[in-house]
């Protein structure tokens, strides 16, 4: 199955195909090495910028810049690999946060609050899944709609109020440390990353997922229950948004309806930066994890030199286009060179 799905014939660089095909292992390795080099460069720059950078505490602080977004980026990567997308994640986080905050005014039970969060996120994700798999709405259209719907519900319920009646123990999720400088957020993210990586790269489910992303119809004809997978991925993304919302709300200590505004773009950027093809069918979890670390480092480095948030997102946008565009330019040049040789065509 792996062979037929991922590995087109090697060595035949066809003239109509500007991208020379290689085995996915080599492609993966190249992309990850590329990301690692960029990370190393940024790391060196940060060390150069701040003498306090190389301490366990600072490095732990750096991780807070990406853990919440990256936690959603993991299932989002799976979703995009399967050829779908969810733009409503940030709005889902806001809705979850508002519901959680409302409940926190009634009860101080942590399990009830977290349970409510997960339930709301799950329902929101399932609604997206139903729209896409049952009512056949294209994912991008469906989630643009639900983005407006979920964010709108958050605004409708909360208006211009702020919720901050969280019980004292609630702060642990976003601010607590499990052991030494290892934060709860980082631990959760690491676990989720390992799980997702095993799921995608080591199980039959992962192979089917890639198959769906490559060719939905072919996968369906080959006996893959495409809709079940897609629905499951939307639910998983919803639940991950809920967990990220718990972490973010706990870290900020308060809920406004504008919480996590615009975060969907950061999350999707992170996934694409990780080498996941937006057209589906290709991508790796290690790539996404590296992209998350890179994002965290860049944001931290920019923070060190007092760059305002909107300029940070400018640079992240430029980085996204640059990192996606550069390899394409490189491949173009390589192709042109191959074609220039006699008999290259």
């Amino acid at each position, binding site marked *: 199955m792996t062979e037929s799905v991922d590995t087109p014939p090697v060595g035949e660089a066809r003239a109509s195909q500007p991208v020379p095909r290689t085995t996915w292992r080599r492609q993966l390795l190249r992309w990850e090495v590329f990301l690692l080099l960029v990370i190393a460069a940024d790391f060196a720059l940060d060390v150069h910028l701040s003498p306090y950078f190389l301490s366990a505490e600072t490095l732990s602080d750096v991780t807070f810049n990406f853990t919440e977004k990256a936690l959603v980026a993991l299932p989002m990567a799976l979703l995009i690999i399967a050829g779908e997308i969810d733009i409503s994640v940030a709005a889902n986080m806001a809705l979850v946060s508002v519901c959680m905050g409302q409940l926190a005014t009634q009860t101080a039970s942590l399990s009830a609050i977290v349970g409510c969060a997960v339930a709301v996120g799950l329902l929101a994700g399932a609604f997206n899944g139903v729209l896409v798999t049952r009512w056949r709405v294209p994912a991008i259209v469906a989630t643009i*709609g639900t*983005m407006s719907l979920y964010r*709108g519900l958050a605004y409708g319920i909360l208006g211009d109020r702020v919720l901050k009646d969280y019980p004292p123990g609630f702060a642990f999720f976003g601010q607590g440390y499990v052991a030494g400088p290892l934060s709860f957020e980082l631990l959760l993210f690491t676990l989720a990353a390992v799980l997702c990586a095993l799921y995608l790269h080591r199980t039959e489910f992962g192979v089917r997922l890639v198959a769906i992303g490559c060719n939905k119809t072919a996968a369906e004809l080959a006996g893959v229950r495409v809709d079940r997978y897609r629905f499951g991925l939307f639910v998983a993304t919803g639940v991950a948004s809920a967990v990220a919302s718990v972490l973010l709300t706990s870290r900020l200590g308060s809920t406004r309806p504008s919480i996590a505004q615009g975060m969907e*773009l950061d999350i999707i950027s992170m996934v694409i930066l990780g080498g996941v093809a937006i057209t589906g069918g290709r991508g790796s979890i290690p790539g996404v994890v590296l992209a998350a670390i890179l994002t965290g480092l860049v944001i931290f480095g920019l923070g060190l030199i007092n760059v305002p948030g909107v*300029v940070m997102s*400018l640079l992240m*946008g430029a980085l996204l286009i640059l990192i996606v565009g550069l390899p394409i330019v490189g491949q173009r040049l390589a192709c042109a060179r191959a074609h220039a040789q006699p008999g290259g065509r």
Partner: protein
Amino acid sequence: MRAKPFGMHPGALRHNAGLALLTAMLFVAVAGRYRQFASATALRDCFDDTSILILLALGQMLVMLTRAIDLSVAATVALTGMCVALINQAMPGVAVPWLVLSAALLGATLGAVNGLLAWQLRIPPIVITLGTLAIYRGATYLVSSGRWVNSGDMSPQFLSLVRERWGGVTLLSWLAIAAVLLTACFLRYSATGRTLYAAGSNPDAARYVGVDAGRAQCLAFVFNGGVAGLCGYLWVARYAVAYTDIAGGFELTVIAACVIGGVSIAGGSGTVLGVLLGCLFLGVIKNALPLLGVSPFWQMAISGAVIVTAAVLSAAGVRGAQRQRILESSP
């Protein structure tokens, strides 16, 4: 070859008729309770309020026809709007038409950046415009250093041009009407217009008949950028203020109007009439809600619910049309 009434496919015609009926019903329901909603003034105001959306949605439609999407429109509006506001503040003597022209040109340049990246590098448009969305918004902050340009800083001519009334209707509304007619003729009668449909409905087939789908995409991005640039001026002049976050998130409203209007996200299909109706539908809702006493905080949720419903209905319509086509083709 079957006759196509009004030059539309039966599916599109059905969709547009349904949408028109829905909009009319909504309007009648509101106007029945609140007579002032049907007054000439209210109608004119409602259309004036929807005009920028109509302009942007027509531009977005061109892009969507070629199987691309432009998420950076609202950021383009902000950047061009901020630029002309700053020029006006620094040099109030420069005639306003020049500013309008430069806004459109700047917008077209920003669109060309998107278009060239899509055409030459073959990066998926959603990735490109996700990046340029952040870049243009950040550039807006950089050119203004985060300051606001208020109405006091702008020249009276700069502000009054959009409010100029000809025959009782504002220049802004006339622009929207002109854009609807122009786009309809462009898409119907010009070879370039047909190219956009061809490029989006089947890029491979388009290549065999000599249509470069990438070039068509690039062209659509340039047009859309030009329109967004023009809207940058219109937005700033109409709301009489320019700051970094103007039109924040408006790209989604624009795309929603297109989707409700029946423009396919997969490219190649969509009608100008549908987009116009989609915009009017959203415009009527937006103007009716405050009248009905709905808290502004609930408005976003309601328009979200409307978008989801419209998307579901439209998806069902597409499936129905497909089923019918299969039935018709069988002997």
